[in-house]
C-alpha cells in the first residue's frame, strides 16, 4: 500500500508532511505535493500532520485514481527535502471543492537557486 496526496493540497501546499517523512518521498509541483508510491513505506506519520487533511492511505475507498496521479507526478517533479512557507492562497483555498479542475498546475516546482 501507500499513502497519497489528494486534491485539497492543491493551491495550499503547506509542506508540513515533508519534515516528518523518513524516506523523503514527497515531490513538489508548482502548487501541490505528491507522494511517490514506490518509495512510501506506509509509516503513516505524515497523514495527521497535514493541516489541509489532504493525505490518505490508499486503503480508503476510491483512492486508485490518486495512486496513479501521485505516481505520475512523482516521476516528473523534483523531490522536496524540507518544509517551506505555504502558498499565499493556502488559508483562503483550504477546503475549496474541485480544486483539481480549477487550480491544479502540472508544472514542476521551480528549483531553488
Amino acid at each position, binding site marked *: 500500500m501507500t499513502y497519497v496526496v489528494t486534491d485539497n493540497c492543491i493551491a495550499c501546499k503547506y509542506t508540513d508532511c515533508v519534515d516528518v517523512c*523518513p*524516506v523523503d518521498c514527497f515531490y513538489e509541483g508548482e502548487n501541490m505535493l505528491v507522494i511517490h508510491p514506490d518509495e512510501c*513505506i*506506509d*509509516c503513516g506519520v505524515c497523514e*495527521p*500532520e497535514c493541516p489541509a487533511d489532504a493525505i490518505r492511505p490508499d486503503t480508503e475507498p476510491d483512492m486508485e485514481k490518486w495512486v496513479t496521479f501521485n505516481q505520475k507526478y512523482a516521476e516528473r517533479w523534483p523531490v522536496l527535502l524540507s518544509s517551506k512557507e505555504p502558498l499565499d492562497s493556502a488559508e483562503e483555498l483550504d477546503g475549496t471543492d474541485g480544486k483539481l479542475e480549477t487550480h491544479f498546475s502540472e508544472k514542476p516546482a521551480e528549483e531553488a537557486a
Partner: protein
Amino acid sequence: MNVQTPTKVMPDAQTVTAVKHWTDTLFSFRVSRPQSLRFRSGEFVMIGLLKNDGKPLLRAYSIASPSWDEELEFYSIKVPDGPLTSRLQKIIPGDEIILRPKPVGTLVLDALLPGKRLWMIATGTGIAPFASLLRDPETWENYDQVIVAHTCRTKKELAYGSEIVEALPKDPLIGELVGNKLLYYPTTTRETSDIQGRISDHIRDGRVFQTLGIPEWTVEEDRVMICGNLALNKDIMGLCGNYGLCEGANSEPKHFVVEKAFID
C-alpha cells in the same frame, strides 16, 4: 534544459558496537550515534545494508535506546528469507550499517495530552520504542503510573523487555523517579506462563485492571501508546475508541498513539 533533482543523502554509515542474540528469532544490537543526531524517545529511523547492486535496502526501526544514550540500540526479528533481516542478523561488532539520520514518529510523549497513567502496549519487537521511552526521565516525570503490557508467543521472547523493565528501579539515573510507578504485565499466547492470552482480551474483560488494581481507562486520566502487529493495533484502537479515547499526533496531541511503521 538544466533541471536538477536534488541528490538524496548518500548512505550514512555507522559502526556496530555490540550484538546480542536473545532467541533464534530475536536479536538486539548497538551502533555508533552520529554526533548531530537528536531524537525524541519513541521515534524511528531508517536503517539497513547495501544490496549487491550497490543500492541501500532500508527498513524502519524504532530506536530502543533513550535519547541521552551515546549509542543507538535496536531490537529486531530474524526472518530467514527476509530481504534485510536475513543479512542483518549476521552483523558483528565492527561491521557497518546504514542509518539515515532523520528520526520521526508518533509514539512520542509530545503527541499525548497530559494524563495520570501511561499505558505502553506492545507485541513482539514492538517493545523497542518503549525500551527507549522507559529509560527517558521525562516519561516518569509526566506520569503517576506507567503500565508496560507486552505480549509474546513464548516466555523467552519476553526476555529483552523484561530485562529492561526489571533494571529500571535500580537504574542510577532514573531509578528514583521510577519508584513504585511501574506496573509490568507480560503475557504469552503459545506457552504456559503466569498471565496467558492476548492483552486485548485482558483489557476487554477487565482482567488487567483488576490484577493491577487500577481503574479502567478514562479520557481524563489515561494515555495509551500502541506498538504491535496489525491485529493488535486494530484491536487496541477499537478498545480505546470504546472508552472515548481519541488518536493523537504531533500536530494535535490527544489520548492515544499508534506506531504504523511497525512490521513483525
